[in-house]
């Protein structure tokens, strides 16, 4: 029997969390370092998976299948293709960086923090590797509880409100998804995600198909989040501790989009196409998310909230790309290449948004740790005082607004290139988002925070005489891997797209 790599990636964090549980509470440093160093194991395994999968990224590999609950026909099914492999690397990388960053920043209830964080990693990783609906759902929900506690215990002032809002929103979506999963099972007779998709559930009953489609769609839309289901996000992001925001933006939002691509699109292509082309509800929502999210950013004076809303806007590109790919089914004369490009853009955006916004939240956390304020108006002229920080922020911010040569550019280019060929109206409106993004990054983030004269008095008044220091070594170490990736993917996107393209091609050719 082969070594069960995927099980290892998923459950090694669980093992580490149990080790953390055993270590006495007082040995905080041991807990911190042990979990960080051990978390390199899933990262290394994820890179190995990436390396192996890239040889043939279009097929499911590393398959594992064991009977789990025979009475319910539930299996322990795992497998990865190019898309999941990329997401695995992203999850493992951000988790390790967060654990490392927490060594220096989390002082309170260290043991519980590390325990919960590792548990969260189990849930996130599991979603990307499961190929069985119930199994998928189990991981989907398991991540919810630690995230709820992370926000509620280590969060900011309105953490209680934010955490419960986060939990209830997601729970609502999950419950809808649970019913849809059962309905699909009753119709197709299997919980296997791939087989169920191949069986095309409810193909002969359009009403049921539409209901099941919307149940799945809403569950994932809440997580993405797509307007109007996005209101939990600004609260959760703003109140979560820095690492919580990083994981929320970097990985948790991706779970929803991943679900759209992995489950909804292949299983309900007809419905997805119908609601993307004939009755274009989905692209409308996507465009609203993009433009509205960006406009809210323009009006935001809380730096963290600004980044949070920028996620709404940026995840809108993903939805737009996926819906363009779906619409190509019904759009007359749409060429399949454009559909594949749009889907590639959407999947690439998952990765690039993960590293860029993850990085931005780290950066916001760093300035907050110094100033204990996030109000943009309190800052100004920091470029002189913190040149290193300024530099890193510039790169990350430019990547976020899609500057060519950095990672964000490619995903946006692909999304719009694909969408223009299929549903041009929405692409044209959506592109406004790019303009607004450039505006708020340059104007709000760069100009207000870094440029201009540094006013010592204003700083002292706003931060109660906080000391102003440039980035510490651990902060640099946290940021560099992300910055390197931004540049690397920016210069050589096929590092990632090669894997994604194969998946998109297989997905869209199966229609």
């Amino acid at each position, binding site marked *: 029997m082969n070594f069960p790599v995927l099980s290892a990636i998923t459950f090694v964090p669980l093992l580490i969390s149990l080790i953390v549980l055993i270590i006495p509470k007082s040995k905080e440093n041991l807990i911190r370092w042990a979990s960080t160093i051990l978390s390199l194991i899933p990262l290394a395994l994820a890179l190995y998976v990436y390396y192996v999968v890239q040889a043939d990224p279009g097929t499911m590999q590393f398959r594992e299948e064991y009977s789990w609950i025979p009475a319910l026909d539930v299996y322990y099914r795992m497998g990865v293709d190019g898309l999941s492999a990329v997401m695995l690397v992203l999850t493992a990388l951000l988790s390790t960086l967060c654990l490392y960053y927490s060594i220096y920043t989390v002082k309170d209830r260290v043991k519980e923090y590390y325990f919960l964080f590792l548990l969260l990693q189990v849930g996130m990783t599991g979603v990307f590797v499961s190929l069985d609906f119930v199994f998928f759902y189990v991981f989907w929900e*398991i991540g919810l509880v630690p995230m*709820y506690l992370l926000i509620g215990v280590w969060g900011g002032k309105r953490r209680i409100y934010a955490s419960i809002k986060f939990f*209830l929103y997601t729970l609502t979506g999950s*419950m809808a998804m649970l019913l849809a999963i059962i309905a699909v099972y009753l119709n197709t007779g299997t919980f296997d995600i791939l087989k169920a998709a191949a069986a095309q559930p409810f193909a002969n009953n359009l009403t049921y198909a539409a209901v099941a489609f919307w149940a799945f769609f809403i569950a994932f839309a809440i997580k993405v989040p797509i307007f109007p289901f996005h209101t939990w996000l600004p609260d959760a992001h703003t109140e979560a501790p820095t690492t919580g925001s990083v994981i929320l933006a970097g990985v948790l939002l991706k779970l929803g989009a991943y679900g759209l691509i992995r489950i909804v699109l292949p299983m309900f292509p007809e419905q997805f196409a119908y609601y993307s082309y004939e009755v274009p509800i989905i692209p409308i929502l996507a465009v609203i998310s993009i433009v509205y999210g960006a406009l809210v950013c323009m009006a935001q004076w809380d730096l963290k909230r600004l980044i949070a809303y920028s996620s709404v806007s940026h995840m809108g590109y993903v939805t737009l790309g996926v819906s363009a790919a779906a619409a190509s089914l019904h759009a007359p004369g749409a060429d399949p290449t454009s559909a594949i490009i749009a889907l590639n853009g959407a999947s690439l955006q998952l990765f690039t948004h993960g590293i860029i916004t993850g990085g931005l939240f780290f950066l916001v956390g760093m300035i907050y740790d110094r100033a204990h304020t996030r109000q943009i108006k309190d800052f100004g002229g920091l470029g002189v005082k913190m040149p290193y920080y300024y530099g890193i922020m510039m790169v990350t911010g430019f990547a976020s607004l899609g500057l060519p040569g950095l990672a964000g550019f490619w995903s946006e280019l692909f999304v719009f290139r694909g969408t223009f060929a299929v549903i041009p109206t929405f692409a044209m409106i959506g592109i406004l988002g790019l303009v607004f993004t450039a505006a708020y990054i340059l104007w709000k983030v760069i100009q207000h925070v870094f440029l201009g004269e540094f006013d010592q008095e204003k700083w002292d008044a706003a931060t109660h005489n906080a000391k102003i220091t440039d980035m510490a070594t651990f902060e640099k170490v946290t940021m560099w891997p992300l910055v390197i990736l931004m540049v690397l993917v920016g210069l050589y996107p096929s590092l990632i797209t090669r894997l994604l393209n194969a998946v998109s091609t297989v997905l869209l050719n199966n229609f």
Partner: protein
Amino acid sequence: MQIFLFLLPQLVLFLSVVLVFGIDLMGSKDKQWLPYLALSGAVISLGISIYQYGWMDFEEGIVLGGMIAMDSFSRFFQIFASLVAVLIILLSMAYMKDKSPYQGEFYSFILLVSFAISLLALSSDLVMIFIAFELLSISSYILTGFFRHDPKSSEAGIKYFLYGSLASAMMLYGMSLLYGVTASTNLIEIARGLVGIDPSLNWVVFPAIVLMLVGFGFKTATAPFHQWSPDAYEGAPTPVTAFLAVGSIGAGFAILIRVMITALPEFQMNWVALITGLSIISMTLGNLVAISQKNIKRMLAYSGIAHSGYILIGLVSWGSGVLGTVFDGLTGILVYLLVYLVANLGAFAVVTAIEHKTGSNQIEDYAGLIKRSPLLAGTMAVFLLSLIGIPGTGGFIGKLLVFGSALRAEYYFLALVAIINSVVAGFYYLNVIRYMFFQPLDEPAREAIQVPGSLSVVLVLACVFTLLMGILAQPFIHFVQTSLKLVLS
């Protein structure tokens, strides 16, 4: 001989009742060991019933003049009853020690109610059912009002008694109507008598079903027959509350399942409609009222009403199912019952431990529990998550089975109500978690809460089982399915 062996767990329980009561009556000075005597009686009974279930074969059938059903369903509830006795005694040991001088009475009544539970689940005749039902009810009234100097406890006892007598009377009336139609009190004879019945008699059978449902609804704390439960839960000594929430509810569902499926399959269309209504009312009312509760015992009482509603979904959707197939409904009802009871028992164990130490049952006094006792806060979180139905805990498997059966039987509206309710329930359960984990302590010097040994046994057991049922669900589902096979024939 076989019947004697089959009833051995009950005989042991009853013998222990007599023994504990008798020794207490003899006036022995030192009564410290009475709980241990009761405990050993319960443990022996549990051991025998488990041995019987796993390693002994009985000729399945109706015995003792049609009074007792000797089938796996009975054996399942024999284990259940003895287990309840063991766990409730463990819960009570530390709690009751300095709260009441009447140790002997208390433990003999705990054993007696457990005896009554198994008797009720074993019954296959309306007369026997009524006797066991009354034995269970009357002992429960006494236990509820056990702190007779505490006005709340006395009030709870009286209230429970008044509601209970009314419910029993109505149930008895329903039974007599059924007897009038079929000329038999035996469940199987009734089922035969109802086949091809003159349609004009439907107007007798239908009220009979309604009246009997009042009685069962009362026992299972199903809305709208639930009014006793919040007050009784709040006033009763906490271990007794745990018993009411676990033992009594379990027994109620046992007899509900047996009567509906064995005796009334002919009128399934009728009772399914009634129970659907009860289920919707129960879920919605229970959850909505639970939100505003400040006392954790009352909150758990209302949430229990809601859970009764979820369980009934399984019975409703049983209709066209085939036992052993996926989502057959009946498996769901018993699995849900099992996971709910374990989680609920655990939750009440935590409540007992906290009340024992702080004397308070207010949810706001759970603030900062994680600092005062990580064990209590951690296990309570597991129980509450199971009650919400988060994967990894047994509650998820229960929900999956019950919702699945509703969809399979095409009760879409019922499924929709159930999921909306699950989200509502998430809110108030999380509220407790929020207090335990997020709220800082009022005074920094609040002392830690020590959990007595007997209590932590219950806690750890309930926690382990809650997690096991979620992760390795197969053996439990299999166990439940074997236990259900014979009630149907």
